[in-house]
């Protein structure tokens, strides 16, 4: 069986939602090399670009780590020049620029990113930078291999003007569902909540996640005991 161990380290599921005060970004923490799980706990797919703008990365890990560093470098210079942190829109457009200009390069692979943050002009915003470099401002976005399974869930569950706790619970639930149905997603769920007050990071370890693998509903069922009858099977009599 070919385990594709020469494939680039790839990444699972990312989610970003806006709520009344800001944004909540979420991701799983699994890194796969082909069919091997390289790591299920240490990776942090939500990276800081500037004070209050973070990027969720899904795709070949090395490339995307480079994108984050590259964009952060430019933003650092911009912050010094303008005397204030960059806006979410400006950051998202830099990410888009990189994605668009380098789409055709072979190393790129399936690259999908979500840029989310808070700035004083427009509040909380989520920008999806899809494969190919299309940039779209959305109230909520998902990407990664595990995202296709939760498209419907998020369409139904996201509501305008949610509270922070509701939004965070939604993100955790969404990523958990994705983990349950996607082999390339797994491990812990990390969330980053960004609003006017600041940035708060959370980690939900794997054993604390709602058991989405188990399709059993959480309703009280009567436990019926069945009596086991034992049958002795003796050796046949000659």
């Amino acid at each position, binding site marked *: 069986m070919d385990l594709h161990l020469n494939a680039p380290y790839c990444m699972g599921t990312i989610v970003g939602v806006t709520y009344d005060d800001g944004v909540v970004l979420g991701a799983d923490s699994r890194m796969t090399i082909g069919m091997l799980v390289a790591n299920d706990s240490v990776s942090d797919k939500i990276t800081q670009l500037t004070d209050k703008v973070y990027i969720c990365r899904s795709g070949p890990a090395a490339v995307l780590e480079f994108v984050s560093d590259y964009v952060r470098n430019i933003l650092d210079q911009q912050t010094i020049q303008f005397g204030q942190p960059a806006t979410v829109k400006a950051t998202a457009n830099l990410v888009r620029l*990189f*994605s668009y200009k*380098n789409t055709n390069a072979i190393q790129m692979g399936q690259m999908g990113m979500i840029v989310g943050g808070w700035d004083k002009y427009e509040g909380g915003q989520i920008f999806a930078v*899809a494969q190919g470099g299309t940039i779209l401002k959305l109230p909520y976005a998902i990407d990664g291999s595990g995202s*296709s399974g939760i498209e419907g869930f998020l369409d139904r569950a996201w509501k305008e003007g949610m509270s922070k706790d509701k939004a965070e619970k939604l993100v955790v639930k969404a990523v958990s569902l994705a983990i349950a149905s996607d082999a390339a997603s797994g491990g812990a769920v990390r969330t980053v909540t960004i609003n006017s007050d600041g940035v708060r990071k959370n980690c939900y370890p794997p054993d604390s996640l709602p058991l989405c693998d188990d399709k059993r509903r959480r309703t009280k069922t009567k436990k019926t005991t069945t009596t086991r009858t034992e049958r002795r099977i003796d050796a046949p009599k000659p």
Partner: protein
Amino acid sequence: MELQTLAMKDATIVDDGTTERTSYPYVTGTSVIGMKYKEGVIMAADTGGSYGSTLRYKSVERIKPIGKHSLLGASGEISDFQEILRYLDELILYDNMWDDGNSLGPKEVHNYLTRVMYNRRNKFDPLWNSLVLGGVKNGQKYLGMVSMNGTHFEDNHVATGFGNHLARPILRAEWHEDLSFEEAVKLMEKCLLVLLYRDRSAINKFQVAKITEEGVTISQPYALKTYWGFSAFQNPSKGAVGSW
């Protein structure tokens, strides 16, 4: 400032050294239809961005105003459309900076787009779009189309993608000079409905845009009513049990 702008200009980090590059479309928009009517030009498109066969994004605006006199609608790769809008933004900006009382009309913008598309095609790096450019300047209505290989023409009604096969025959039969706005919208909706039935990438969320001497109006997205009242739909395999 130099370092920053250099970094932004030179965002093409990865240089494979290959000279032959044909890009593949990832997030695409489906048909755009345009037609002239009495006061100007009307254009319509759905607001969907497909990712292969997945109808992934449902609020993509594919018709945008350009300067004072034109409307641009695009099908194909959305990121390339967004890049074209940036080029046109720069073009209009430079035109405005002349501050000479003149402004680029639809014919000029159409020609510019043709040059851009054709040049990219010659470098084997096309912008993967079919563009519909419509507008009114000094009472003259204009409607044209440019494809990703630089083919361009003008007509009274144009369409991209599936629209060419499904909408244009309807328009050839029913379009006439000096349609009123209401008639034009009705005709447009007739075409959009056919596309909704027969184009798998179409979604039921359309925007209709119009441009006249007064300016541009782009409608809020709305849905069309589809008809399913055929009796045969109730029990289609009645006459042939086991078939579908």
